[in-house]
């Protein structure tokens, strides 16, 4: 497998990539207030910038099949079980490094502008740097335990950042929910690691190193591997917001927008995808797990897309869209196309970060307004934001020659050529839905006439350069990153050549006939075009009309009648979907998921309240408890006699 064929070289530089943000974090903790808001922010951004530079340098040095390795010290050792604090960079990690430091750097810069007026700026940057550190630990750790440390760490930072504007009780609750749902996922993750360690330990193998594990996978029985991977996948479901644990992500939008962009779009939520890709050698021989992953991924992609249609909060739309796109990635993982999953992760990071930051720019301009019904016509006020938003929307919708087109198309093609036509169909429909809700958003926010509340109107302004420059960079990325992974009938995929060695034979890179491939692509493009057209028809020309579809009044219906296709779509698609999404939003989420989350807490609390009655405060009752236990022990012993 991989480790045996690739060359391992030591590069002491690696440690500085995560350590520099950590140092900046420490400096800001102790001296942040003394340095002042601006300096602290600049320091934090600069630290990530240095990490980015180092990451680029490492990327440049890295040969295609090589692995760089850097051992700091042995973290935990007991007997033959040794866990090192050491970092490794291979092609997969290198890509994640670029995403984390690159997008992270841009978002730090952006935050300098976005958080300029916030009192807790120093604290914000402390958390942000800490997050970058843990995220880098997650992707660079050379063993499962380090990955787990990073995994838990980013969860914590996410929790802290979502609850950042704590004066709002709602935010702390949202943060709590995120944390608890994640802990449910973590339970699976921990148990999975546990099982892996135990089962290998039973064979006398005590290791969690990524380099060692693939050699010993063959010692495990298929059933064990299935169970382990299923448990690990539960962790990924929690972290990457898949059905049924996706609810925390929309709630997490309560945090500052740069946080949503960095953590809840580009990096942390993709950790689940990264983990499955990193452990591809475990997942690949577990077909049962893979099919479950594929089904959950497809289902999540579809349902989240339907829910997104009914959202009016600009960030909620993006949140559900993130859930949906993550579903695509898992769909890819499920069919064994790890490379395609990571490719989509890569392109998605750019356009989704761009969208989030763009929405942040809008919110910033509108004094914190997030309701799309109170926007409209912002195109002329915020030209730079608008154009970058357009590009990113094109990309996520999958319009040809944008990044999203290539990556999504790759996944769909893999599904098709893999023979999973049902999955493919779901993917294609979802692509149409994606185009619809994203353009709906674009039109509602930037087109039509302005519905902005009067007192806000005079203050609308384009954001400063610190905010628009990152937007422009990300918009450029939203186009060109996709070109790295063009299909063979265009100029071929640079991407596959780069990433493929990591996954060895794990990835079924079937290449069917080119005509079929093009045909399949054309179907997708057609569906996407329909989605865009419908959104245009419903929302662009009649920008003032913001009434939800099912509440359509007479006038609304008359206006609609001129567009028969719209009516048609409304009847057969929008209404049922809206209903489903409403059902999801109003019943499933609060009852099932909240119920599950709060239920655990409630049941525990209930038990707690009952049990604590035993603690009556009467010392003689305690003594009776003591004596009863002693008697029980004595009688237990006497029975043995």
């Amino acid at each position, binding site marked *: 497998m991989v480790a045996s064929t690739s060359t391992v070289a030591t590069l002491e530089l690696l440690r500085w990539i995560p350590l520099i943000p950590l140092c900046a974090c420490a400096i800001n903790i102790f001296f942040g207030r003394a340095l002042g808001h601006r300096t602290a922010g600049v320091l934090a951004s600069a630290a990530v910038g240095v990490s980015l530079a180092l990451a680029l340098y490492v990327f440049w040095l890295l040969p295609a099949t090589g692995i760089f390795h850097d051992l700091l010290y042995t973290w*935990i050792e007991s007997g033959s079980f040794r866990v090192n604090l050491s970092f490794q960079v291979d092609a997969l990690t290198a890509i994640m490094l670029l995403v984390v430091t690159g997008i992270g750097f841009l978002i730090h810069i952006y935050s300098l502008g976005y958080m300029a007026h916030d009192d807790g700026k120093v604290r914000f940057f402390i958390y942000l740097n800490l997050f970058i550190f843990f995220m880098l630990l997650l992707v660079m750790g050379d063993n499962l335990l380090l990955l787990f440390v990073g995994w838990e760490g980013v969860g914590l930072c996410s929790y802290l950042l979502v609850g950042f504007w704590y004066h709002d009780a709602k935010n702390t609750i949202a943060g709590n929910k995120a944390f608890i749902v994640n802990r449910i996922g973590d339970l699976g993750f921990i148990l999975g690691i546990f099982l892996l360690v135990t089962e290998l330990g039973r064979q006398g193998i005590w290791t969690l190193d990524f380099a060692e594990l693939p050699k010993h996978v063959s010692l495990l029985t298929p059933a064990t591997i299935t169970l382990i991977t299923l448990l690990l996948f539960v962790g990924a479901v929690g972290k990457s917001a898949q059905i049924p644990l996706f609810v925390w992500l929309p709630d997490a939008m309560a945090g500052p927008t740069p946080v949503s962009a960095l953590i809840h779009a580009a990096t942390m939520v993709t950790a689940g995808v990264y983990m499955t890709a990193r452990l591809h050698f475990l997942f690949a021989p577990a077909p049962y797990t893979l099919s479950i992953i594929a089904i959950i991924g497809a289902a999540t992609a579809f349902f989240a897309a339907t829910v997104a249609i009914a959202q009016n909060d600009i960030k909620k739309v993006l949140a559900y869209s993130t859930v949906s796109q993550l579903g695509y990635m898992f769909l890819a993982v499920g069919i064994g196309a790890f490379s395609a999953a990571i490719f989509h992760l890569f392109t998605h990071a750019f356009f989704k970060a761009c969208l989030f930051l763009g929405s942040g720019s809008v919110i910033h301009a509108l004094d914190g307004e997030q309701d799309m019904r109170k926007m409209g016509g912002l195109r002329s006020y915020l030209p730079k934001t608008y154009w970058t938003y357009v590009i990113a929307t094109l990309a996520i919708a999958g319009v040809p020659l944008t990044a999203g087109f290539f990556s999504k198309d790759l996944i769909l093609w893999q599904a098709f050529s893999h023979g999973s036509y049902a999955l493919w169909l779901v993917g294609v429909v979802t692509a149409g839905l994606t185009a619809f809700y994203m353009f709906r958003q674009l039109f509602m926010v930037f087109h039509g006439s302005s519905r902005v509340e009067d007192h806000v109107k005079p203050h609308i302004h384009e954001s400063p350069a610190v905010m628009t420059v990152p937007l422009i960079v990300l918009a450029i990325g939203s186009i060109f990153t996709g070109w790295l992974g063009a299909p063979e009938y265009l100029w071929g995929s640079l991407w596959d050549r780069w990433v493929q060695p990591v996954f060895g034979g794990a990835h079924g890179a079937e290449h069917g006939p080119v005509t079929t491939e093009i045909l399949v692509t054309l179907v997708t493009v057609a569906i996407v075009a329909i989605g865009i057209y419908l959104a245009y028809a419903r929302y662009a020309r009649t920008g003032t009309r913001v009434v939800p579809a099912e509440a359509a009044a007479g006038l609304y219906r008359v206006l609609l009648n001129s567009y028969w296709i719209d009516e048609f779509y409304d009847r057969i698609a929008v209404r049922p979907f809206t209903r489903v999404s409403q059902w999801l939003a109003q019943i499933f989420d609060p009852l099932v998921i909240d119920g599950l989350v709060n239920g655990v807490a409630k049941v525990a609390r209930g038990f707690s309240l009952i049990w604590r009655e035993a603690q009556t405060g009467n010392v003689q009752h305690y003594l009776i408890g*003591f004596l009863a236990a002693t008697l029980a022990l004595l009688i237990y012993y006497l029975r043995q006699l």
Partner: protein
Amino acid sequence: MDASLIPLLPGAQVLLTALVVMLLDLFIDEHERGLLAWISLLGLALCGAEAILLWGSSEGTFGDTLLLDNFALFFTQIFIAVAALTVLSSMRYVRETGIHEGEFYSLILFATTGMIVMAAANDLMVFFLGLETMSVAVYVLTGMWRSSARSSEAAMKYFLMGAFATGFLLYGIALIYGATGSTNLNQISAYLLEPQGQWPPYLFVGGLLLLVGFGFKVGAVPFHFWIPDVYEGAPTPVTGFMAVAVKAAAFAAWARILMHELSPLDSDWALPLRVLAIATMTIGNLLAISQPSVKRMLAYSSIAHAGYLLIGIVAGEEWGSTSLLFYLATYAPATFGAFAVITLLTEQDKPKEDYGHFAGLGFKRPFVAMAMSLFMLSLAGFPPLAGFTGKFHIFRSAIIAGHTDLAIIGVLNSLLSVIYYLRVIVMMYMNEGGVKGKSFIESPYLYTAVGLAAAATIYLGVLPMRTLEWSRSAFSSLF
């Protein structure tokens, strides 16, 4: 009879300091009493230095009734560190609450002496007297806040239950003495090498009663009832001292006596111990959830942690014992630190220990709040803090020993524990309110204690190997 005095050195050092503090107290003025704390710290520091210098020695004295080995020294270090932190964090507290300083410090030191004896004792009687010295001193410390009705109630409950448990423990020692003809652990374990058929049945009952006594001291469910009430009522620095040092001392004796010397009896209490461990973890965690008071929540949490430690006892062998020692070292700073933060919030006569009183601490005292967050996260087993590495080893030792079910229950419990640990952090970064217009018992010394505990929490999580090595060599010195 050999009577080398060197093995007595650490204990004698602390005892001497206690006597000096006690006597000096009589001769100095009210406003100079702060000096006593410094003398205590100096004595403890000297003892710590001696313990470091003596590391690696293995010497018995007074007919092998007291053993100075790495095991004893490891625990001595823990006791001294905790005692020193207690002194640091109570320097202003005792003044605010009207606790008499001289007696307070000397009793802390007396209790520490008792603990050192317990950890080094190789004779049931020596152990018992060490235990009593510690217990009596801690009973008094619990009731020392004399103007507080809760403090005296706690002392009463602690004493009553403690004396009751002492009766059972002593009865156990009597039965073991009767069966084996000696109280010296060397001779007892020599006796236990005889074939099992020859043992009188009351030997087992003696062991069982010892188990009950130890179960009481470590706060294992169902012998835990005293813990919440006593921890809540006692002056907060004393609570920290109890939750860490007293518990560690009890586990030290448990590890040396029951786990090691009496190990031939193991097979008879394997099942009860498993039940004890599961009940202790689960009940401790469950009951902690519904507590309105952070101090009481921490009391229950300390019960839950005793449960995790019991996993180490059940697992036994090399890894179980090593991880037990290591877990105690990782548990110590976080627990003590949390109680030190509660000390900060104390106000005269009014308990200010509810979750609500932590509201806004994150803004008023950002560093303290950060340290508290660290402690909570460490107790919840969050990587890469001390609690994580500790739990990692405990659970791994359980897996190695074939108790995977215990390890899984432990993991479930530590996930459950997040519910209540997290609430503290949430409250601290919530709206201001509880803290508004509130006076803190602030002193640079208390902050030093909190800072040291926080540093140790990070250190043991990030660089655990050295301490783990120490734990291992402490364990192997038992052989």
